[in-house]
């Protein structure tokens, strides 16, 4: 019992020590930097809420990635799927003013789900029917989505004054309310937690989830035992896209209220790291996403108060994640499993070398 408490602290201490060396070498004060990081991420009620706001899109995209990866479908396209979901939400959002709040919210979120599902589904269909490697198709679809967003905010969806490359704001009725205002806690976050639980149940408590995991572990054996691989591939990619697209819609509905270029700072890519840190366990996605969100949030405070350059902030983020992943000794595994949950499947996440099915 004692060791299970001590281990995480020992691990964090080692991480801190390594980073301190880097910081000291660069002439910064490690203590000040860490204090600022912690203060920025969790120092106040508002800091905490901000951390959660930053984590929310990572939960949606992280779930999208972990679901697809569980079936050995390497969905690198959560960013594109989120973007298309956001475009769909941003396009329909301004026209929902005459609906009651609940209906308007349902419609805008459904639009995001649909947009993401189509984007993921295309990659799934290409893999299932045309045997196009999903790594390639999802990366390509990312480019298409990002350029599509850029086009719509300069073209068809540009706000009426044509002064700024953004869309018109969505109707008030379609905006997710903030509970405990002025904090920005909203329904999207609750939805994220509920969906994490739902994904967990889907993967580990349903027949379809079992087939998905079997396909991920041993595709050949799965074909021998009547798993309908093409259909499963399509639906999982569509569902994965739907989760990411919903993340995009939540972002539009709750936070940004309009479309603009570079809406996603790379949530769909960070999601891959989130999913791998969580060992593809949907319940682990939440703490993993909060870790990333906290690093992101805290590092801004680090920049402000300690004058640390944004590049170094990213170095620190990278180091923390690497330390979490790299030390695969029992003690470290214990730490990881304490925080992010034990992987339900016996084996670890497949190493990167096995990933693309070239």
């Amino acid at each position, binding site marked *: 019992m004692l060791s299970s408490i001590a281990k995480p602290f020992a691990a964090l201490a080692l991480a801190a020590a390594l980073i301190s060396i880097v910081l000291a070498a660069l002439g910064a004060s490690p203590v000040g930097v860490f204090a600022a990081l912690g203060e920025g991420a969790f120092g106040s009620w508002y800091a905490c809420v901000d951390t959660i706001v930053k984590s929310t899109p990572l939960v949606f995209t992280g779930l999208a990635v972990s679901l697809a990866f569980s079936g050995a479908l390497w969905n690198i396209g959560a960013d594109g799927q989120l973007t298309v979901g956001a475009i769909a939400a941003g396009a329909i959002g301004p026209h929902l003013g005459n609906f009651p709040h609940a209906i308007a919210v349902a419609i805008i979120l459904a639009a995001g789900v649909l947009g993401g599902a189509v984007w993921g589904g295309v990659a799934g269909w290409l893999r299932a029917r045309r045997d196009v490697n999903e790594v390639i198709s999802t990366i390509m679809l990312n480019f298409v989505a990002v350029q599509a967003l850029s086009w719509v905010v300069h073209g068809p969806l540009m706000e009426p004054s044509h002064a700024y490359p953004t869309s018109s704001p969505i109707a008030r009725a379609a905006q997710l309310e903030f509970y405990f205002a002025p904090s920005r806690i909203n329904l999207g976050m609750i939805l994220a937690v509920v969906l994490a639980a739902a994904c967990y149940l889907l993967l*580990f408590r349903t027949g379809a989830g079992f*087939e998905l995991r079997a396909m991920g572990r*041993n595709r050949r*054996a*799965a*074909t*021998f*035992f009547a798993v309908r691989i093409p259909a499963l591939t399509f639906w999982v990619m569509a569902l994965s896209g739907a989760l990411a697209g919903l993340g995009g819609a939540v972002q539009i509905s709750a936070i940004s209220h309009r479309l603009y270029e570079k809406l996603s700072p790379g949530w769909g890519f960070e999601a891959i790291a989130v999913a791998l840190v969580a060992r593809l366990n949907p319940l682990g996605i939440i703490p993993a996403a909060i870790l990333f969100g906290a690093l992101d949030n805290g590092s801004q405070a680090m920049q402000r108060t300690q004058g640390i350059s944004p590049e170094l902030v990213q170095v620190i983020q990278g180091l923390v994640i690497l330390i979490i992943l790299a030390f695969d000794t029992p003690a470290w595994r214990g730490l990881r499993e304490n925080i992010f949950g034990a992987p339900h*499947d*016996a084996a670890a996440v497949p190493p990167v070398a096995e990933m693309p099915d070239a």
Partner: protein
Amino acid sequence: MLRANAITKRFGRTLALDAVDFEALPGEIHALVGENGAGKTTLMNVMAGSLAADHGEAILDGRPLQPGSPRAALAAGIAAVHQSPMLFERMTWEENLALGGFDTGAGALDLDAIATRARSLAAKLGFEMPPAGATVENRSVAERVRLEVLRALSFNPRVLILDEPTSVLAPSELTAFLDLLRSLRGEGRIVVLITHKLAEAIAVADRITVLRRGRVVARTTPARTSEEKLAGLMIGEIVTQPVASATPSHSGDPVLQIENLTLDDHTGRRILDRLSFRAAAGEIVGIAGVDGNGQTELVEVLAGARRPSSGKITVLDGSSGGAMAVIPQNRDLDGLILDMRLWENLILARPLREQVTSHGWLNTSHAIDLCRELIDRFRIRAPGPETIAGALSGGNRQRLEVARAIASRPRVIVAHNICRGLDLAATAEVHRTILDFATGGGAAILISSDLDELLAICGRLLIISRGKIRETNPGERDPERLGLLMAGARD
């Protein structure tokens, strides 16, 4: 001299090797025999450096080997051929051999030179090689084993350890292979042959060491022992002959009907050529053939993993459970998901999956109970349903597959090389299970390259050769004549 001194190795709660001493001399073929799970493979892995022992050491010519380093073992002159071929599936066979000792070039990789050297060695051994540039993934198990043997010999090793190499070789290859072992012995090398074919051990070995449950129970020579004595030592009790008699050739209504089944591969090559046959309730039908004549593809088609180009497969009266259960030959790749739990592997079978699923929800505790029941009933040696399939020994993996097939309550069981790598007791057990299944009104199709096995249990024998199937005369039991048919002779 190769020595193993008091080697102890533990896997979790299982004591795989318990202070085992072993020695083999230059110019000797030393057979290592034992039941599945007796520790033969573990001992080999310790000597070949793939595993580090908990206690004890392996010594070659007075020099201790670095534990847990296959590279050091290889440098010292120990090469191993593993039971499950360790090959790179998506690479060509030449590329696979490039990791062997054929590659003498400094830096530059010359695949042509490697292929030439490999072919000349293969010709000396009487091995047939795949076409140039063929990837391993579509090759038969026998071809894979041949590649492994070639790779091991390419190092020109002083010690060659072979784990069940002969179980998948064709009869014509077997003779040449045993001659090869003798000639290696003649060159003063140490040959360690792990086998469960006792006749083979007696025929070719100079000395025999018997393992049982991780302990050496006997050291003997062929002159001082017999198959029966060895079998008794291995199992610890007197065993009777596996299965007394073959089943009646016709007993019930037709259950399986296959008509003009044809399969062309993507290059248009004909793999299965208008196969037609039937099986009746209560019947065990054997399909004998040299590996690589379309058996693997036939199993894939029957399992539904591959769509035939034309033809019809009908299972009549699939009233209860699944219509057909398939036991593929490559249990580690096709039949099981080694890093999933036993109960998860169990519900890979669709009928069982459906049995424990209601409205889409998986009833895991139901699945675990079912698994526990089958572990008991089929005497699978495993701590429990939550065990990872990869932790089971080969024989217990096969028991799990058979248990799964029977539990799906099919009308037809199709099994490919079902007893490959199994010892006498396990083989007898599997045969008895299949026999019970047939007696209970099912039809079993056993596909195998082991003619003796098929003759022992099958009521009717078909021969598959170059994708074509032919019936044999009901009375035809002469292995030599059947062997000729397997090799493609026409009457």
